[in-house]
């Protein structure tokens, strides 16, 4: 696990454009040279590189995601390649059979695209707008809360709880999404609240 010369540091030293000519000085063989010359600069000059973390287990391997287009510049970005981050202390560039196939989960055919609604008794989902979907959610929640909220228990103690609606939180969202979720759920008085850690 020699980390003295990571790929990133190497390219910084050599400069992506002249990588081919400088490689010999570092003692790399001809194959490496050809590869670096042909492929790496091609990817780095044509795509945007972004640091991210594998979405699966909590080893939390560092990954590099390459996209056509740059979100930071307000462009639409299409992810074209994902690989392990060689600078990451834990995985040092390696990925497992799941992590190595991350690109396929990003572009899975079963990724959800649009809000959908299935009416009572129906045998299908139908596409709806975000406004229709969210207004409906808010309406049902509000009606249920107003009807079933318990302000005081039988002993007259203020309990301010709502237990007829529940929330099951995720396991792969960010801390920031989780904190935002916590604020919204708890401020409504909800107690039927759990997350994937239960399993």
């Amino acid at each position, binding site marked *: 696990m020699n980390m003295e010369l990571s790929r990133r540091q190497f390219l910084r030293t050599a400069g992506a454009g002249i990588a081919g000519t400088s490689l010999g000085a570092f003692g790399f063989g001809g194959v490496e040279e050809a590869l670096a010359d042909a492929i790496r600069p091609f990817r780095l000059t044509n795509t945007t590189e972004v640091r*991210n*973390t594998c*979405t699966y*287990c*909590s*080893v939390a391997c560092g990954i590099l995601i*390459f*996209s056509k287009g740059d979100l930071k510049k307000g462009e639409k*970005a*299409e*992810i074209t390649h*994902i690989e392990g981050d060689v600078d990451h202390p834990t995985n040092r560039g390696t990925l*497992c*059979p799941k*992590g*190595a196939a991350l690109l396929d*989960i*990003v572009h899975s*055919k*079963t*990724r*959800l*695209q*649009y*809000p959908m609604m*299935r009416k*009572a*008794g129906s045998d299908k989902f139908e596409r709806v707008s*975000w406004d229709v*979907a*969210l207004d409906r*959610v808010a*309406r*049902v929640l*509000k009606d249920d809360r107003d009807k079933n*909220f318990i302000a005081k228990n039988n002993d007259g103690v*203020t309990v*301010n709880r709502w237990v007829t609606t529940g*929330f099951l*939180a*995720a*396991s*792969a*969202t*960010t*801390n*920031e*999404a*989780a*904190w935002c979720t916590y604020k919204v759920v*708890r401020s409504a008085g*909800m*107690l*039927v*609240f759990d*997350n*994937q*850690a*239960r*399993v």
Partner: protein
Amino acid sequence: MTNSWTDIKNTDLVVIMGGNAAEAHPCGFKWVTEAKATRGAKLVVVDPRYTRSAAVADYYAPIRQGSDIAFLNGVINYCIQNDKVQWEYVKAFTNAAYLVKDGFGYQDGLFTGYDESKRDYNRTTWDYQIGPDGYAMVDETLQNPRCVWNLLKAHVALYTPDMVSRITGTPKDKFLKVCEMIGECASPTKTMTSMYALGWTQHSKGSQNIRTMAMLQLILGNIGVRGGGMNALRGHSNIQGLTDLGLMSNLIPGYLTLPTEREPDFPTYMASRGFKPLRPNQMSYWQNYKKFFVSFQKMMWGPAATAENNFAFEYLPKLDVPAYDVLRAFELMKQGKMNAYICQGFNPLQAFPNKAKLAEALGKLKLLVIMDPLETETARFWENHGIYNPAEPAKIQTEVIQLPTTCFAEDEGALVSSGRWLQWHWPAGSPPGEAKTDVWIMAQIHLRLKELYRKEGGAFPDALLNLQWNYKDPHEPSPEELAKEMNGYVVSDVVDPNDPTKKLLEAGKQVAGFGALRDDGSTACGCWIYSGCYTEAGNLMARRDNSDPGETGAYAKWAFSWPANRRIIYNRASADINGKPWDETRKLLWWDGARWTGYDVPDIAPTAKPQDVGPFIMNPEGVSRLFARGMMRDGPFPVHYEPFESPVANVIAPKVRGNPVARVFKDDFAQFAEVASPDFPYAATSYRLTEHFHYWTKNNHVNSVLQPEFFVEISEELAKEKGIAQGGWARVWSKRGSVFAKVYVTKRIRPMLVDGKTVHIVGIPIHWGFVGAARKGFPANQLTPFVGDANIETPEYKAFCVNIEPTTGPVA
């Protein structure tokens, strides 16, 4: 994890029991390989299956699933009997010398105070004797028969090698070999690490499985040291973060707890939480509880939380039951007591036990809301998929709203690794279609509810209307804004009481850490244990400096580790009572005569004298607990209990069924197979495959090609007995459901001899369902029992009973 993935390289012995890191955490497992290659470390694997972790182990011992406590109590007994104890550590850093109340006792599988009708204990005798000075009484000579050490010695004496072998099915010589290898780590210069996962948690006594190993690690002096620790290999990318942030029925971020209805007011609530030290000079860090709690309330409700209204204490809901965990939620749903349920990135129809019960429960809801990047079975529970999901849509009145969310590659923020590292990541791609971030969706729900309450009024709107929501764009708070809230900031200036011209804290500034938090409302902080992650110095979670001075494996400048950027918790215990490292070659912290110094951020105050202040600062004793007092529902010492469905009766307590205090709902008890039932004679267990991640990767073409279809695994002996051919079909059924599967006949599973009886094991991978790119198949939860761990309600997925017969393939 008490330690980190990269710290595993420092160990001498890796024990993988209750997990299978080589397959489930391959890139983390490489640190085991590193320790083996560079330090000559050994790997021991104890598992019912000969897993890929076992395949590269130095020693493998088979064990019957659900008997880990018997095994580990046996190891503790071996260590005590053979003087494999790190005595200096045990005497200085555990409660071995503490005296226990006279009323406490144990007999025939039960502790003092059991009430069978309540399935619960009165735990008042499970505590220390308190002296006239208000402190716990101790006998440092360990002579007093009531001291923890002597009670423990008596408690584990039953678990002799013969008894262990009788219960666990592990051959006695293999058990003793493992004991011998573990026993060597009692040396102050030898360290063992425990790597475990769901193989220990998914039992009706999961918490005690883990606790037993923690006790063993304390006896060996392996907690707080490099290459040691209790290392939970967490499953999902931010399951640690979601837990830290308290997205659970009874929690407040940072492991604070919600009030119950027996705590009607703020002073009553605080009375049982601000723990006073139980020994002189101890930090008893929860004494600061009020600072963390008030700062949390200030972050939630801002100006609406005032000293006058007890910082909006009544805005918090109060519990009437211990928790509304998922199992309780589905039980209530089934009883028709719930109306709406929101699933965020979670597929409970696959993930919780007894699928038939779950589907029935979902069908009684008025509204089910799904937020997910992917199709899930839960979103389509009403859809008919033949034998894989028999449903009659016309009869199911549940309205379902499915909302598309972004995935990891399209969003920004931090995820917490098993090693407690908060690593920030950046978005790389545009979301598909109209997918939105979870933050945006939660904001929309909140803003719409708020608008409805403003217009219409309704039940107690105060907590909702006054929720602090002062984001630049209220429709989509930015990750930075939310991270800054979790870190905390100063609400109003705090001046130095000795010099009023000097500001100690300045309003509007981010706090530097939880040490700055106050209980008077002048600071606000969303999650105290994360404090320090986003300070005036910027976003420390985004740091990417992989330097590692001394090559300790700490990587202190890479991202941020909670708490306080500490990489190994309880690290003061890496040095002896005088502050000298146990092992010079693996030193972590040391006392230089005036303060603590070293490679990590010390647990205790940097100037706290080593002889005075104990390393286990969260305990009011300052030491760790071999005797858990009343903190665990099922006992202060671990006891071997059989799974609720077991091929044999409990050898040490034949009258006790399962864990005697585990919560079981009435209808579920009726769905358990009897002990040693001839109808369900085989011991089943569920597990993951290295090519798949739960129910996600079946949506992924590559992984679906690698492992395309559902199968079960059985031994050659069982296959012969039942006339099942390699690659043939079988029906496997429990008292709750039935599955059809291809059969993999394998040498990886062998029958075991348990209490004189041959027990066959059936292995069931979990990954299939009726949506995605893989072939349709059955999920393991069609078979599993609806019962959880007595302390935290994690379902008993790893040990249950089934029957099996050869069959032809299914007609779908």
